[in-house]
């Protein structure tokens, strides 16, 4: 078996466990977006163009809250800013690939493919470029196509769900479930607490701009606490 082929299969294995997360998220997005009034073409284009669950949920929620387009975009893009970090982290390993290939990989650079690839490249840094690319697309295979399929199934299901199911609360619960496991350090907890406090205090500001101010304040708080706790340790 050629080395890049076995790397591809290793990639499939590496990200396969994430399929368990992708299916319910995709389903939920399809349902929530459909309930919010998007038609099947809009829902599918959303998932195919953006492939970023948290930002997609955030955008739907902000549009439901009648936020202006520019604020919807600023908030959703802020949720995705972490991916610049992923892009920087994988560049030493994939940066030598042809431009078109890098563009395709950038499109598929989601939380799960990043997680699988960064672990692999750290474990086997001396692999060839072809193997590293092979692994990356292997990690894409069980995750990204499922995201589209699950979204489609959710959108088809969406309108059939009665209001007793309190689906308006699917987004808050999903977000809390994503955030909770991230609260590993004092800095993360401080950032989250600042975000909540400022968002509630600034809720009176027009056009949901309070959330943007709260996010910025929370990022600075997280970074500040990180510096202080590191200083103590070092």
């Amino acid at each position, binding site marked *: 078996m050629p080395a890049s082929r076995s790397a591809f299969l290793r990639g499939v294995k590496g990200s396969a466990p994430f399929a368990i997360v992708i299916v319910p998220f995709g389903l939920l997005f399809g349902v929530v977006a459909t309930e919010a009034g998007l038609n099947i073409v809009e829902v599918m284009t959303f998932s195919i163009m953006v492939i970023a669950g948290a930002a997609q949920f955030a955008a*739907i929620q902000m549009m439901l809250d009648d936020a202006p387009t520019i604020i919807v975009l600023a908030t959703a*893009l802020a949720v995705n800013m972490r991916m610049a*970090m992923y892009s920087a982290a994988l560049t030493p390993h994939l940066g030598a690939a042809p431009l078109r290939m890098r563009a395709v990989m950038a499109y598929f*650079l989601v939380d799960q493919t990043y997680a699988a690839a960064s672990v692999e490249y750290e474990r086997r840094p001396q692999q060839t470029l072809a193997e590293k690319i092979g692994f990356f697309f292997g990690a894409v295979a069980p995750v990204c196509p499922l995201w589209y399929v699950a979204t489609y199934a959710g959108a088809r299901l969406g309108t059939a769900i009665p209001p007793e199911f309190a689906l308006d609360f699917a987004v808050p619960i999903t977000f809390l479930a994503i955030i909770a496991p991230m609260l590993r350090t004092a800095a993360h907890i401080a950032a989250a607490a600042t975000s909540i406090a400022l968002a509630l205090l600034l809720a009176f500001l027009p056009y949901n701009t309070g959330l943007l101010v709260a*996010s910025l304040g929370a990022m600075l708080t997280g*970074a500040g606490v990180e510096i202080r706790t590191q200083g103590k340790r070092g």
Partner: protein
Amino acid sequence: MITDTVQIWTVIVVLGIGTFLIRFSFLGVIGSRQMPEWALRLLRYTPVAVMPGLVAPLVLWPAATAGETDPARLAAALTTLAVGLVFRNVIGAIFGGAVVLYLTPLLIG
């Protein structure tokens, strides 16, 4: 309901392009140059800085109850957070929150 089709399509297209450009940034253009330490430090906190602030008003003042704090939604939110913190498991946390969301109205009827 979101009724503004122009807004929906603007958000889909611009968010799609913007997200791609974020993902392509270093891989495509900036290359192997190191990101400054302060930038990495800020980026580390983007998810925990944005999402809690987005959720907090939805938990305390849900639109579905016209902004009235609802015990079922509040209990569900706290359960989700607790399960997520203790078990570090996203799907388990969603499931726990959903169970409490549906059971609380039955219990306090």
